């Protein structure tokens, strides 16, 4: 049907955002657009304001100036009812999962469904299991408490909860941090599947070079309060900017040193 018309729709629109904490300027006239169906990775050094930007987009933290729109709704100016409605159309996965510790995993996933939808009671457990399955968890995990989960499972459970309401946009804060490389790659595949097969627009903060180079189709680099670079991995890497250069070469230096190839990393001798 109207898929082509939707393809160019801007779902996350950041316009001229300024953020100041006391004397410290975090964002200086920052603008950024994410279109429907994109998979965008946000990178930047510590203190470059990635997390602050994400919190502003989510409506959790007020910018000093500028507008932030998600799915056409201004997250700071629109009436509360409109903002509440748009919150049901995006999902957020927090870095540490932020699962409700008093509920088991199934209860966590069911919470948004119970609060915001009229799901028939008979279908609810199935729907919860489907969300868990989409996030790569078995149904048996549903009965566990968040405290009993490993880091990777916590993130998957948090993703299952973020997917509960069929979001159109998914925000992820460092989805692979603290995961072992195998689990992290599986998580990358999961994010790509959600983006490709279910058509979710994804905006994520990440520091994982493997994630960036494998699944991110667009990389946005934040620094000095603005967007330093924006484009595919190749385009971003070719930008002449010291921080970007050292960021992408941080791993090449380890890999390209043939003298270390067969050696244990413990050196000093």
């Amino acid at each position, binding site marked *: 049907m109207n898929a082509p018309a939707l393809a160019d729709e801007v779902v996350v629109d950041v316009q001229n955002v300024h953020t100041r904490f006391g004397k410290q300027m975090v964002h200086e006239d920052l603008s950024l657009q994410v279109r429907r169906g994109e998979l965008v990775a946000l990178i930047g050094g510590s203190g470059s304001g990635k997390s602050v930007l994400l919190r502003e987009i989510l409506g959790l933290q007020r910018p000093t100036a500028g507008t932030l729109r998600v799915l056409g709704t201004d997250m700071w100016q629109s009436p509360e009812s409109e903002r509440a409605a748009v919150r049901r159309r995006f999902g957020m996965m927090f870095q540490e999962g932020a699962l409700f510790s008093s509920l088991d995993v199934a209860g966590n996933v069911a919470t948004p469904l119970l609060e915001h939808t009229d799901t028939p009671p008979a279908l609810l457990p*199935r*729907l919860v*299991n*489907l969300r868990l399955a989409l996030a790569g968890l078995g149904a048996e995990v549903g009965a566990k408490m968040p405290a009993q989960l490993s880091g990777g499972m916590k993130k998957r459970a948090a993703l299952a909860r973020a997917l509960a309401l069929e979001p159109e946009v998914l925000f992820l804060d460092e989805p692979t941090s603290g995961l072992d490389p195998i689990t992290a790659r599986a998580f990358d595949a999961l994010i790509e599947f959600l983006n490709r097969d279910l058509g979710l627009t994804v905006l994520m903060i990440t520091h994982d070079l493997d994630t960036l180079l494998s699944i991110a189709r667009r990389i946005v680099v934040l620094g000095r309060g603005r967007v330093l670079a924006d484009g595919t991995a190749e385009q971003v890497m070719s930008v002449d900017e010291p921080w970007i250069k050292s960021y992408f070469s941080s791993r090449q230096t380890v890999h390209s040193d043939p003298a270390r190839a067969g050696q244990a990393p413990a050196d000093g001798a």
Partner: protein
Amino acid sequence: MGEAQRQCWVDEQDGRVVLHLGGAWSLAGLRDLSAQLSGPDGPLGGGRPRLPQRLDGQALQHLDTAAALLLLGALADAGTDLAQLELQHFDARHGRVLEVVRKRYAETTAAPPKRPLAALGRFGKATSEMGQLLLGHVEFFGRTLTEIGRVLLNPRRLRLHELFAQLGQVGVNAVPVVVLVTFLIGVVMAYMLGLQAERFGANIFVVDGVALGMTREFSPLIVATIMAGRSGAAFTAQLGTMKLTEEIDAIRTLGLEPAQVLVVPRVLALVITLPLLVFVGNVAGLAGAAMMANATLDITPQVFVNRLHLALAPRHYVIGLAKAPVFALFIAVIGCRMGVAVSRDTRSIGINTTSTVVQGIVAVILLDAMFAVFFQELGL
């Protein structure tokens, strides 16, 4: 998009039953879709067992995973073999969504294992947990006393900095609330006793009653209750958070003893300050009573103080103060132990903090009852 719009209907093509889908199949309309699909007039409900072998998505405008699950669930429940189901005229996106759900359908039917304990089982579990808790308290109490003993043998082991920080938090900062509460209790006691005493013209004996009741029973009990809520809860929350953020593990890996660094200063701080706060409470309570006596019973402050000298034997006062360190020891040990016993999730901090307050107050009242019997037997 009227309500009347049909979102599913069945017909036959080349001898096969085809289920047509139309309109928006989404999470928001699940109940309505379910009614259309499996209701009495629906293709899968009522008395028409026509199981579709094919799905047609030509008229479909939107399909999300929740609606796809509803559809496949209804089909499977009606007896359709999902693997044999053919799809035709589906938009690529809708087809992908349907395939994603079909692939995972088997996983969604598993019921999460839930086995609530029967009443007797819960009772047994609670009893056993209570036993474990008390056993843990006894062990912790012993360890704390050992550690305090070590500090007494070698005073340089005492963390003075931490002790003074705790003295400030536990003692000095508690003075306003202690003064306020005991002052008001003094006012109330004088008023209530005064109402009775006035009828017999025995106004002056109000001083006897307030002095004895306040210093021997009420002030220690009330101040200890305040501290159980205030400091006991604080100890649990502080140590529980430190446990959660692995600070306690860090202390141990640095070769220090958490009991000595964290527990001893807190216990000592409360044992030192509680008698002092009880003294403050005595003064405030008597001041409140004196004020009330002056206002309603024609007992001037001068007369009040003179009567106090006659009526209040020092032993009552000393007994009241002597109970305080014992209360403090129990409150502090319970508070610290419940903090250390926090398990690795945030919820248990809340549970343990609540439990600390309850246990602290129960302990104080139990101890007070034991003291009452004990002093009675001793004839004090």
